[in-house]
């Protein structure tokens, strides 16, 4: 195999991992941008989405209905989570919210271990489209579906936030919660909606992830969750196109380091980039550097 073909294959591998990171990062950035909360349980919602869809698919349900119900299920979970765990703390310090989010993450992981046991389970993949052939390179259907879905969702979300009335409400809550309230915007509803969208996105990510790797376990969400968080910070947390860009860049760096430098060093380099980014450009690639108003 020639070096050029190999290089293109690695680029495609990078895009594939990148689109999964991007998809997860979208949910992170959405919730952070509006509610100013880093929802560490986000990775675990991915796991919940995967298990929900597994259970539904095992009943013999058509994949489209199973997917839709899983998204709704996760959205409902996100809604409840916000009302029960985060809303009472909205006036508390940022650190209490963060700790609650970590607690939420453990709660989800451990309750799913109780219900489904810690043993990994096979997932019946349902994306069986034909692979794409470009010369000597084959691109499997999982690759391009994940890519298309993440870019499509990014565009839809951007349009939603920029063009609709609900989106306008979200932007104003993000900018100044108090002022938004004075202008007659229902802040509680807006934040709930944000959580519903964010967790719904996580369900989509969970289902695509499971189709790609076909084994699911209660701890499957933690590592991709952390990587996606890095992607969101890299792209500029709070920015929707930033999350997707960050995801792709992260996936690409990881793959190219593994392929051409060393597999052992891949994670070291990824985290090093995160640190450098935070030192030199804390707002991320597409993030705006907003001064705190005094």
């Amino acid at each position, binding site marked *: 195999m020639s070096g050029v073909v190999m290089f293109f294959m690695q680029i495609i591998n990078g895009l*594939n991992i990148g689109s999964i990171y991007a998809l997860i990062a979208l949910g992170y950035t959405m919730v952070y941008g509006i509610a100013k909360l880093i929802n560490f349980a986000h990775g675990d919602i991915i796991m919940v989405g995967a298990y929900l869809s597994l259970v539904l698919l095992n009943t013999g349900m058509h994949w489209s209905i199973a997917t839709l119900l899983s998204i709704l299920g996760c959205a409902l979970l996100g809604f409840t989570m916000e009302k029960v765990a985060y809303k009472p703390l909205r006036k508390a310090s940022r650190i209490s919210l963060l700790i609650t989010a970590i607690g939420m993450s453990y709660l989800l992981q451990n309750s799913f271990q109780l219900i489904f046991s810690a*043993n*990994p389970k*096979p997932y019946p993949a349902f994306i069986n489209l034909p692979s794409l052939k470009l010369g000597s390179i084959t691109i499997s259907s999982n690759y391009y579906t994940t890519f298309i879905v993440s870019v499509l969702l990014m565009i839809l979300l951007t349009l939603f936030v920029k063009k609709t009335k609900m989106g306008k409400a979200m932007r104003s809550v993000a900018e100044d919660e108090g002022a938004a309230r004075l202008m007659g915007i229902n802040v509680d509803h807006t934040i709930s909606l944000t959580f519903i969208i964010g967790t719904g996105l996580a369900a989509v990510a969970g289902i695509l992830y499971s189709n790609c*790797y076909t*084994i699911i376990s209660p701890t499957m969400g933690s590592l991709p969750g952390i990587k996606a968080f890095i992607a969101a910070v890299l792209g500029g947390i709070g920015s929707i196109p930033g999350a997707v860009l960050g995801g792709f860049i992260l996936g690409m760096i990881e*793959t190219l380091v593994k*392929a051409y430098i060393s*597999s052992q060093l*891949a994670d070291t380099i990824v985290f090093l980039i995160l640190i450098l980014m935070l030192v030199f450009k804390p707002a991320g690639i597409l993030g705006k550097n907003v001064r705190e108003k005094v």
Partner: protein
Amino acid sequence: MNYKQLLKGGLALAMSCMMVACANDTTATNTTTSTSTGYEGAGDLTSFKLGTAGPRTGAVAVYGLAVTNAARLAVDDWNKEHGTNIEMIYEDTQANETQALNIYNKFVSDDKVTAIIGGTISSESIAIAGASSDTGVPIISPSATAAAFTDDNGSNVFRACYTDPQQAQLVADFAIDTLGVKKAAILYNMSDDYSTGLEESFKKEFEAKGGTVVISESYPADTVDFRTQLTKISGEDFDVLFVPNYYQDDFNISQQARELGITAQILGCDGWDGVLSVAGNNASVIEGAIFINQYSPDMESVQDIMASYREVYNEEINSFGINAYDATKLVLSAIEKAGSLKAEDINKEIASMEYQGILGSIKFDDNGDPIKTPIYVTIKDGQYVTYGK
């Protein structure tokens, strides 16, 4: 210096004294040489006690339950076959070394067991074996793979399973002698001792026998996407892909290797056992993969025990259990042959016997490690099948 500082200083001094005392304590027990103590199990040849221990609760309970349950089953079967009245005492180590030591002490001082089947996992087994030098009671673990278990202990310690280096060597021999291949690629988990150990021994043996490892790639823990490493591997020319990991990784690697067009024979070790539980309807990607294991579920000799275990415990037996069953019967026949409940006599008998069990013949080398028929399992039509059958 005020009184608080004094208090702190005093406490620190007291603590370090305690530590030194503890340290002295352990060296004292370690230096006790294993001389013949004349330990003997209570009872007579038709009714004596055996002990078995393993984690029956907690995260690794699946192994301990299999070992202790199968050992009990073996004694029941033996009693029925020989009209004896032997008792198997079983205890839960909780995978905790201190707990394992307590159990050992109970076994030898209260129950006066004739032999011990266990521990189950390596760390607790090492603890028990270490303490056993003062009695020399026969100890045989069906599942402790760490080299230190037999290496660091006396002539009363045996194991019935392969050590990790042994497994990898056998697979390398199999690749060269049976499959007749010369070039291998490896993909292993660099953050796991089991996997790195297997990689090392495989490479050594494969190259010693005239083969070449053309590429050896690694990945960190919790990886699910191996495509980058596999793309690199696919650029090389090789005949077998050695995948020495646990079954979840093994499955993902095989799936992604096939997806990337790698058609080479896939080989593995006993971490592959269980791979079908995560394969679901995608078992075609592991079709034809071969791995070394303690047993194969299609062997005729294990059908009875599989059925009776299912009947008694309402669960499927695994390779830990099968091995424990065989090891228990081995000990029982050694006691019968020795005609004595003296530890010394039984140890001599085990060390010199060649036992014919449900898993084929087994004998022990000077170290207490097994020399036995290797069993290769392959996946055929989504089932585990003995290779070459």
